[in-house]
């Protein structure tokens, strides 16, 4: 449980990747703020958000890096993959091209993260079912073939957004429990009890609510 001055016992580092305009920042905003930001400015470089969740009675702080989606920004964002415990790979169910690019994102994710990194596939904009361009089954199959977890979410309605983030955390926690994820490894993406003392504990809570707001 909360140890010492900290009200969480783990920090998990996440990274959100995917083509531009698939709703990465909105997902992050929805998760951290629990509301939909229709006109979120596009991300330059990276953005950042946090939220504390609870898994199996353990308080876990999620440290989420939201990256710019444009291809050329990969040069900048690649350095953020390193040491990520979870990677949320997002595509837009109404745009097939974003789904088609998944393999390239997956290659990056696999190459630049450690083998234990949990990769979660998210089909965003599930509220726009009428404009659907990628079927659930197809994406599910892709996820199964590549050993990914998968959910269709809507950053707009908030559907499944919590689950996607929480399921990833559960999986990571499970990996820690069964020993397949070595906490001491340099790039596990998991910190057990933060090392640097925070000068103000109470900044945590409001901070989690601020998240991605620009």
């Amino acid at each position, binding site marked *: 449980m909360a140890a010492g001055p900290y009200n969480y016992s783990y920090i998990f580092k996440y990274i959100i990747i995917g083509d*531009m*305009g698939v709703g990465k920042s909105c997902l992050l905003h929805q998760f951290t703020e629990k509301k939909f930001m229709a*006109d*979120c*400015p*596009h*991300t*330059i*470089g*990276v953005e*950042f958000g*946090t939220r504390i969740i609870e898994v199996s009675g353990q308080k876990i702080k999620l*440290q989420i890096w939201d990256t*710019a*989606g*444009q*291809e*050329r*920004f990969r*040069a*900048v964002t690649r*350095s953020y993959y390193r040491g990520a415990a979870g990677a949320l790979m997002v595509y837009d169910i109404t745009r097939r091209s974003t789904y088609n690019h998944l393999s390239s994102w997956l290659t990056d994710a696999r190459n630049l993260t450690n083998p234990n990194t949990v990769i979660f596939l998210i089909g965003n904009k599930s509220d726009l079912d009428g404009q659907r361009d990628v079927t659930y089954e197809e994406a599910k199959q892709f996820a199964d073939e590549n050993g990914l977890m998968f959910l269709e979410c809507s950053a707009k309605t908030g559907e499944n957004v919590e689950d996607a983030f929480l399921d990833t955390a559960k999986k990571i926690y499970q990996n820690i429990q069964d020993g397949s994820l070595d906490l001491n490894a340099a790039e596990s993406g998991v910190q057990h009890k933060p090392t*640097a003392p*925070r*000068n103000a504990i109470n*900044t945590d809570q409001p*901070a989690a609510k*601020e998240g991605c*707001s*620009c």
Partner: protein
Amino acid sequence: MDASSPQHSPKSPKFTKREDLVLLAKLEEANRALEIDEKSVSLSVPSDSPEVKGHSRQGSECSVLSGNSVSSHVSNLTFDEEISHSHNAAASPVKKKAAENDSWVQWGRIVNDWESYSKKKYPQIKDLVRKGIPHHFRGIVWQLLCNAHNSEHKDKYAEYLKTPSPCEKMIRRDIARTYPDHDFFKDKDGLGQESLFNVMKAYSLIDREVGYCQGSGFIVGLLLMQMPEEETFSVFAKLMQEYKLREMFKPSMIELGLCMYQLEGLIQELLPDLSIHFQQQGFHTSMYASSWFLTLFTMSLPIAISCRIVDLFLIEGIEIIFRVAIALLQTSESELLGLDMEGMLRYFQKDIPAKFEADPEALLDVAHLIKYSIKKMKKLEKEYSSVKSKEQEEQVELRRLRTENKLLKQRIDNLERENQTLADRLIQAQVTQATMQEEKFALKRDISTSKQREVDLVGKLDLAEKDVERLNQRTTNLTMAEGQAGIMIQQLQEEIKQLKLQIDNNNGAMRELREKIREMEELNRRLQKEPTSEIQSLQEELIASKLREAEANLSMKELKQRVNELDQFWKKHMEATNSPDSKKLSKSQMQHIQDELMSVKLREAQALSEHKEMKQKVMELETQNHICMHQMRRMDDEKAALKVLIDESEKREKECLHMIKEMERKSTNVSSKKKEEDMMSRIKDAEHSQAIAEMRQRIAELEIENQELVTAGQLKSTDDGEDDMAGKIADLQEQVWDLKMSRKMQSVSMMRLANIGCDSESDTESLDATITESDKFRSFMTEQMNSLDMNLDGENELTNGIQSAVSRDDCSTRELITITDDDSSKTADSAFLGSANMDITATNTSSMSNFSSLSNTPDLVSCWSDDASSTSSDHKLPPPGGASIDSKKRSSLTQCNTANNNYKQNVPVTDAGSGPSIPKHSLGNKVEDSNLFSDINTGTLSNNTQANALQTSAHKDIEGSRQDLGDTKGSFSGAEGVEVLDQIVTQV
């Protein structure tokens, strides 16, 4: 107020009136207030101001502006000014007003006559921009600053609007997400979004490489807030192409990485604490600063500051971004140091924009005070490029190594496959060998069985031969038995004849007897008829006859039995001889036996032939066996060769690997060397360039000097006697040189005398005397020189003589006495040489006599040391023997002087190059002497070695004397130089 400006606006006379000034000041103040309002509060867009335009039109009649405005914009703006002027009623301090007035007036003038201002007064413009471009001028000034007002892109804008772009979709996606909170861009498909889209699309058409990049929209948005889209487009194009923003937006984004690296370097240098804190927190520069560079702070700071930053960016370029970035960090350092990574990120997101919203100038003031060194930036750029290139090299290397690895793996696979095939072949060979062996074994077995059979056959043959023999024996036995049987048959036939005769006899007897019986019976009958007595006798006779009869019967029976027996025996015999016609039978039997024999013989022959065949077969098998053996051996050889091959291939593989490793190592070495060399060459280059610069400077100096000299020469050219004077001076210098030399000699001799232990006073006296006599010595010197040359010739002759003596010596090595004679003569020669060289004959001869006297003594060391000392004395060193003549100071002094003179003479000779021959000759003599001497004393080995040692010591002494010579020379030139010069001067 720049009254001196030639481009005086027609307005200026107007402002000379105080009332007007006051009025204008009021107007400016109001405007400023308005401006600030616009910037900070609603950010109402100045470019989309048809209202303003309308106003300006209304107020156009009261315009004082000259007609030659650069664009309608300018006139509009000046009209604005007028309007405000007329409407404004607010009061404000006069000073401030004046400043404002200044700025407005100046900007008005600048804008109106941009061409000449930009050429002549650029620094002034720069200063003005630093102070801030007034809001209303901003749109036009930006265009002017980046020279976009006459850009060619502007004309084609309409065309671009019609052309579709591949980036359209992407741009469209981001349009709504650019300044989403800003009024101008808020409305979906509103004017702002549409023009933003148009400009972005148009740019993506003119720069296909960059196309559209996220972030650039914010810059375009800011521009659109100041000017219409066509102008925005041209300014944006200029910004991208001439301010190198496009480098940042290129797909590789290398420039951005460079900026991050440079900023990091700057932070490290200027804000070391913060840099350490960032590093500790893992807070990378790109986490907060990417957007600063990509959007020129438009995304991170309030629009008012962004506008100011863009003002400066147009003048100063990317430098201002670095300055502002450092200023931001510097002003927030204390806060940042107390935050962790998340806190800092939040701080940059939230607090920074708020912090500077109120006072944009403060930040810029700080920014202008930042120490920004272009050199440092260049250095960082170089570092970054080297880091990048290194990374790339590494990647290339990695790729290369990977491919190499792949190739090697392939090769290994190939080798393994080869190995496999070889192993297979080996196994096959082994299998074949095994089968061969099996065959061989089988053949051996065959051979052994056939041999066995042969043995059996031989045995059988023997048996058969034995059979034949036995049969032969039997046949002979049979023939023998046949003969016996014939004899027995004859005997039996005779017996049978005898028996037949007996039977006849018996039959005759029986007839007789029967007759007798009848007679008897008749007698009996008659007796019966006659009386009994007679009967009785008759009866008795009867009984007796009856008894005889019984006996005859018995013998008959016996005979019959014998006949039967004979018959039986015969029969038996017949049976034994197979038949009564046994002869025939035996013959047939013989024949039969012979047949049998023949057949046996045939069989024997057959067996023999078979035997032979078998033998042949055995031979064949053996040969086969041999062949097999050979084959096997060959197989073995092949196998061994294959093994060797395998080994070799493995070795080669290893070697290859080794070589590859070495090559890798070499390549890394070479690359590192190359880098080092690069670095060195660069450093050298720099040094060279510096040296060149220095040289140039020197050349320039020299030229100046030269010039001076030339002018001086020209001035002095009138002086005719100068040349003569120079000659004189030269002569004098020479004289002084000689004097100096002699003085040196004197000093040296003084030193020596002192060493010897002379009285110092008398020494000084003598020295003084010698100094006065120096001129005389000079003449004497030349004489001595000549005599020395003569001596040299004589010496050469002497050496020849010595050589002949050596040859003579060789001839008569055994005669020691003559040798000693020769030696003594040689000693005399050398003595003569010594006397020729200088006036130390006495010592030399004494040493020589010592030499000759000691030559046969074992104590060679002392002799040779003497000799060596004499040699050294030859070389003008103070003779050790000089101590003995310390009483005659004067004479020794003169001697020394002459010696010195000689020495002096020798110096130039030595310099001329012929000099060394003199000491060398004398040395050569000595060496030859010593050689001779050693030859003489060959009997005593130790002497010889000692002689050699002495020789070397002599050499050393010579060397020492030479060194002394050099030293004296050096000291001479050094110590006496000043004096000589003084003398020259005085003489001149």
